[in-house]
């Protein structure tokens, strides 16, 4: 294993994200890697299998801009606001291109990442009982306990080609630290072949935080310093959630034209995070 390289976001995405890759952008409401997603859009990556527990605005944007051919997910919405119009239009009408979906529960996705990080071919859980999900997702199976006979749900491990996350800090050796709501990022990074991390800043030494996750340098391919890189979500200690943008997105994204115009103006023509909202 080698250590993480500190580079530009554009270089990292160019070198590490290929057309057709399975790409996971993780961050559970907190620390969503928006800037990295925008760079994937700017570089017009295509035919991606997008993986994410909670596809929200950034996946709405990736899907609406035609980057994805498949979505593996467990909850797709604009949190506290409503539907994702671009995701819905892709699923319901195939615009801008058809989108295959593989749908799980949160517990299923979480355990699939854990299995991926653990080098196991599948995960098991007490899950999906009585639900219709297995009728439409052949990648939900069962396994019997060899001791009790109890039937458990089984899902295949998730092993993205690339996992992308945003974190608060890196140190000079290329270790990364995140804290607050840490989600499934550790597992998503460890399950991936390659990992890109955007960070708020590089520090000399990490100050400890309760419940911090430290990802050693060897688990990361590239680090890019992108302050505000999780906007409109937030980075605890650095920014607050821009709730008004989530609300505004409902209108921006409702029609194809308004969506495309917004993307053109704020993402395609920009090399920077489109908006910042620092504390």
């Amino acid at each position, binding site marked *: 294993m080698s250590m993480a390289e500190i580079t530009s976001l554009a270089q990292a995405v160019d070198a590490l994200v290929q057309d057709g890759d399975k790409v996971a952008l993780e961050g559970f*409401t907190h620390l969503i890697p928006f800037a990295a997603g925008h760079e994937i859009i700017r570089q017009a990556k295509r035919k991606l299998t997008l993986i994410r527990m909670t596809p929200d605005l950034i996946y709405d944007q990736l899907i609406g801009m035609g980057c994805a051919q498949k979505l593996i997910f467990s909850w797709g919405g604009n949190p506290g606001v409503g539907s994702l119009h671009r995701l819905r239009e892709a699923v319901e009408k195939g615009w801008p291109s058809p989108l295959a979906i593989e749908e799980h529960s949160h517990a299923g996705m979480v355990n699939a990442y854990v299995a991926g990080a653990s080098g196991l071919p599948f995960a098991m859980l007490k899950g999906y*009982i009585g639900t219709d999900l297995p009728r439409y997702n052949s990648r939900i199976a069962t396994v019997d306990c060899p001791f009790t006979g109890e039937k458990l749900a089984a899902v295949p491990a998730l092993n993205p080609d690339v996992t992308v996350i945003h974190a608060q800090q890196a140190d000079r050796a290329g270790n990364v630290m995140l804290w607050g709501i840490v989600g499934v990022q550790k*597992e998503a990074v460890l399950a991936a072949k390659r990992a890109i991390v955007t960070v708020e800043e590089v520090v000399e030494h990490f100050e400890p935080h309760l*419940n911090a996750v430290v990802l050693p340098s060897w688990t990361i391919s590239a680090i890019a310093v992108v302050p505000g890189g999780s906007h409109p979500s937030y980075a605890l200690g650095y920014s607050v959630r821009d709730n008004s943008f989530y609300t505004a997105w409902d209108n921006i994204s409702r029609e194809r034209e308004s969506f495309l115009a917004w993307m053109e103006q704020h993402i395609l023509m920009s090399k920077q995070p489109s908006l910042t909202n620092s504390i």
Partner: protein
Amino acid sequence: MTQELTYTADEMMTVAASRLLGNNMFCFVGIGLPSAAANLARATHAPDCVLIYESGTIGTKPKRLPLSIGDDELAETAEVVVSLPEIFNYWLQAGRIDVGFLGAAQVDRFGNINSTVIGDYNHPQVRLPGAGGAPEIASCAKEVIIVLRQNSRTFVEKVDFITSVGHLTGGDSRQKLGISTKGPTTVITQLGILTPDPQTKELTLSSLHPGVSLEQAQAATGWKLQTAPELRQSEPPTSLELEALREIQSRSRYD
């Protein structure tokens, strides 16, 4: 002569839901209506109710209602924050949760929840957000309380898609799946309170909120609504409850 309090149907719903949470209960809380009710309970009769959101925030004490499941306020006021594998495996699946408090887009006669799709799965009429944490909350929490606005589109004979299982097809069909938890014990709406019949497990009307008629409740239900043996009238919100709820909500404007 006491002065009559004015309140909305939504306020009645939230207050009625909040009353079901006991002190010291471990409550796994969905965003939206359940979150409002749970925090109202914490602000009134159940200050030591332990709220858990699926973002991994345990024992959280938000001052304003979170817009998302992962608001900073939830992390900053939590007793402890754990990763998603821990919250789903070590807390929910392990059976530590007393009450799963869920919202829903649709609920059916047997308390099954649909939050996935209206119409056919492969050719949806309306694509909804999907499962999230709900399927395992519905099967692993010791009991489930559902809160949603009731009308003939949300209260249906049979959901188009079972996202989270309730009493399946009634009777002992839930247990036959191998689930030992109770499932939905109460459904609270802006019109009243429904509870499953002990035998058939069909949701029956057990309480009407003040000013709501049986006919109104029936009209907002997609199956022939039965009443429980004792149909009660819900206690209206107290001034304390209303004040606390409005205080929470006034701190929670997001625009």
